[in-house]
């Protein structure tokens, strides 16, 4: 199938869905409106709400806050995950001692941490960053841990036979291997950084996309809720696109990098 046909079909799905939504929420079927506007709003209202946000410029502040929180959560979580993952993989004893605690911490639904973080760090961005970090950290940590442990024996032996010292093995073998595993989970970890930020905002904040949605919900402004969701989706898709570009640059050496994701 050509790109154009594919794109046309993809757009068609959106059009059909939106048209159905518009029709069912405005035109009565057998004297009854299937999607009552109070609960479902309608595409025209949602769209005009989005336009209003962008026209007045209110949305930019919220987008910037959410973006900034996501970036901080991603960076801090990744750095922590890489360092600890590396440390655990190179020190099996440490890994064995901490194993049950790591599993316990990872099993905990992160949402329950939000009130604690809000208490500790206030309602500003840092409580949201902390929530994102707890999500990103574990993904990166597990990947790096695995990556360092599963370095090919032959490649390691080859490094040794070529005369690499422990430090050089670190630099030329362990490090690139661990990073490649981290990059392969980039989509997931970036996604989770955004989730952490938005959920944190939703549970208590003064700005951000999550805050916007929560505010709209508080006054039964369904159009506002949907508008917030659409802006959020577009935001995530844009970020994901950026990640795909970064991944293509960083993983050129990997056979799956170019043909893995569509």
């Amino acid at each position, binding site marked *: 199938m050509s790109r154009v046909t594919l794109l046309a079909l993809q757009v068609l799905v959106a059009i059909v869905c939106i048209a159905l939504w518009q029709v069912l929420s405005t035109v009565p079927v057998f004297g009854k409106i299937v999607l009552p506007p109070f609960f479902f709003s309608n595409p025209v209202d949602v769209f005009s709400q989005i336009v209003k946000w962008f026209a007045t410029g209110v949305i930019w502040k919220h987008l910037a806050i959410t973006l900034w929180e996501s970036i901080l959560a991603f960076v801090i979580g990744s750095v922590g995950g890489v360092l600890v993952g590396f440390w655990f993989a190179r020190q099996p004893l440490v890994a064995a001692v901490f194993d049950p605690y790591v599993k316990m911490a990872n099993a905990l639904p992160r949402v329950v941490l939000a009130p604690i973080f809000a208490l500790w760090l206030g309602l500003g961005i840092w409580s949201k960053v902390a929530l994102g970090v707890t999500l990103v950290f574990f993904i990166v940590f597990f990947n790096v841990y695995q990556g360092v442990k599963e370095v090919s024996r032959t490649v390691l032996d*080859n490094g040794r036979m070529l005369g*690499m010292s422990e430090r050089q093995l670190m630099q*030329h073998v362990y490090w690139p291997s661990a990073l490649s595993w981290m990059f392969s989970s980039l989509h997931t970890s970036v996604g989770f950084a955004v989730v952490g930020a938005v959920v944190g905002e939703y549970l208590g904040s003064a700005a951000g996309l999550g805050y916007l949605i929560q505010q709209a919900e508080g006054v039964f402004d369904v159009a506002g809720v949907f508008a917030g969701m659409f802006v959020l989706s577009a935001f995530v898709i844009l970020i994901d696109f950026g990640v795909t570009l970064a991944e293509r640059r960083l993983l050129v050496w990997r056979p799956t990098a170019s043909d893995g994701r569509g």
Partner: protein
Amino acid sequence: MSTPTAVALEDAEVAFRLGDGRVYTAVEKAHLAVAQGEFVAIVGPTGCGKSTLLNVAAGLLKPAAGSVKIFDRPLAGLNRDAGYLFQADALFPWKTALDNVAIGLEIRGTPRAEALPRAQKWLTSVGLGAFANRYPHMLSGGQRKRVALAQVLIRDPKILLMDEPFGPLDAQTRQVMGNLLLDLWNADRKAVLFVTHDLEEAIALADRVVIMSAGPSSRIIGDWRVTLPRPRDIFEVRLDKEFHALHREIWSLLKDEVMKGYAQSTQAAEAV
């Protein structure tokens, strides 16, 4: 003998402790000397411990008994005089072909600006001058072996250890690689210890062919000198009368070991 001995295994024994506490003796009292400039091939049935023996010479494995001497000095730790060509892919997948070759020099502290042109030269001499910027996964199996060969040779090791290096390649590529190896080796005649299960390859390449018995506790059971004239062409040397005579003679010994090794491996499979 006037030429110094590059590698000397004296009564080297290799044993592994199995999971259940028993000790598995892979190689028993191996006695093997490789002179400087000599090309020695070790041939044996699958699982006879020939790669194990090579790893002992490389210092990757410690012998349970006996000694390993490299240029008359006992080997401690890794063998720094040796370059090792692995059977499996051992290139760094995140480095380009050029960087993979240059790394051997960079490790030693050669500045990158100096290492890169020399690496390019080596890539050219293994016939991959135009592939410098490819990553290993973009190269064929044969090309990857060429890069690996350049990676090892750029360090100019005094000894070359090769563990079925052309094993994963198809028959034609193996012969091409064999000729390439001989050409490169002819330039400065390093001591070579070449492990293979392919007797023809061994005779075509080597000065001496050493035969190992089927494992466990395998031993060296034969040692033939190959007097075919050099330089050799692998394609043509196989048509030589002397080649055939030698092949027949060695094969009569090797055949029994191959059958034994095969029987043992099928029994082991049934026992599992």
